[in-house]
């Protein structure tokens, strides 16, 4: 007994690293880091078949029309485009045009930071004001349009809104987007960012016919 006790009692841990490596490689291979990320979109409520869709009386100038046809060509405000570089800025300028603001919209305008106020061109051909019933972004596709192109456009429009929201509360668009609204302070920031400027993105029913 005595002799045995004096012998080294240590477990040989040299191969521990090998075992750990093996397990590590297994998990490395099987893992798919969950990507629960995406572009959020709230669909409109379902239509009552007995009731015709509500006629929204919007002036032509209050709608920013983006359409993508069967061949993935862009038509932005009835103009053919080869690419959509700078679309996000155009959308921003459209939203913040303040062409014909009413009293509430003037109050909203005055509450905006100077950088956003500077974007107001007050062009009579563009949107009246960004409040509800004002500027609407309409995205129309064809049934043959590829999903990727549609998402690309939606992405840019969302970017414009997030940048406006962020700028109102002194954040970048990126930072605003990362807000989760879980703490009261974050929720307050989020509410303040989008107050009176609803994300008015209208996704039209796609065309069925070619072209």
């Amino acid at each position, binding site marked *: 007994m005595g002799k045995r006790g004096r012998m080294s009692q240590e477990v040989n841990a040299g191969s521990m690293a090998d075992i750990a490596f093996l397990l590590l490689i297994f998990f*490395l291979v099987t893992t*798919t880091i969950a*990507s629960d990320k*995406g572009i959020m979109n709230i*669909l409109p*409520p379902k239509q009552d078949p007995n009731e015709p869709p509500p006629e929204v009386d919007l002036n032509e100038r209050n709608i920013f029309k983006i359409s993508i046809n069967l061949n993935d060509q862009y038509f932005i405000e009835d103009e053919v485009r080869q690419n959509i570089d700078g679309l996000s800025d155009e959308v921003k300028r459209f939203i913040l045009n303040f062409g014909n603001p009413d009293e509430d919209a003037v109050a909203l305008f005055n509450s905006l930071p100077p950088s956003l106020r500077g974007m107001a061109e007050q062009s009579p051909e563009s949107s009246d004001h960004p409040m509800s019933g004002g500027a609407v972004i309409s995205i129309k596709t064809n049934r043959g349009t590829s999903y990727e192109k549609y998402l*690309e456009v939606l992405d840019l429009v969302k*970017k414009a809104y997030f940048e406006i929201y962020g700028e109102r509360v002194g954040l970048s668009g990126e930072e605003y*987007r990362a807000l989760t609204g879980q703490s009261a302070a974050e929720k307050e920031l989020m509410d303040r960012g989008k107050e009176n400027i609803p994300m008015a993105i209208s996704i039209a029913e796609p065309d069925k016919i070619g072209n």
Partner: protein
Amino acid sequence: MSKFKKKTKAETNIPTSALPDIIFMLLFFFMVTTVLREQEILVEQKIPQATQLQKIQKKTLISYLYVGQPKNTSLYGTEPRIQANDVLINTSDIVLWVNQQKDALSEAERDQIWISLKADRDVKMGPISDIQFELREADARKLMYASVGKVENN
């Protein structure tokens, strides 16, 4: 030359006794983050890229719809199909599926359900809009177009 020789005499062994600990740490990280996929994806999944991504905090609220060309084209054809859970379904089955998913949630969370649409980038807008129409019918209006991050180049 003799100058260099002197230096080489120094002990150059890197202590490796902490190696298992490091490996274990990595191992635990991957064990925790890993989600073993319990269902086989039957359709092509090349998730499109986008920049304005947002994350849903409560993962239990998310239900997934996979859309894309079937991998087994000889069995299911080449037209884009919808996969829910582990079967391919038709557009008309979506309402039923949504209601099943809602039933699995608690009463209070039922109207907060998010649908994550994992569509292949080659899918056309036709099937997508059909799905959107059905989701509106099923009153599951919170839709997320699943996409992966893209590096912005501006």
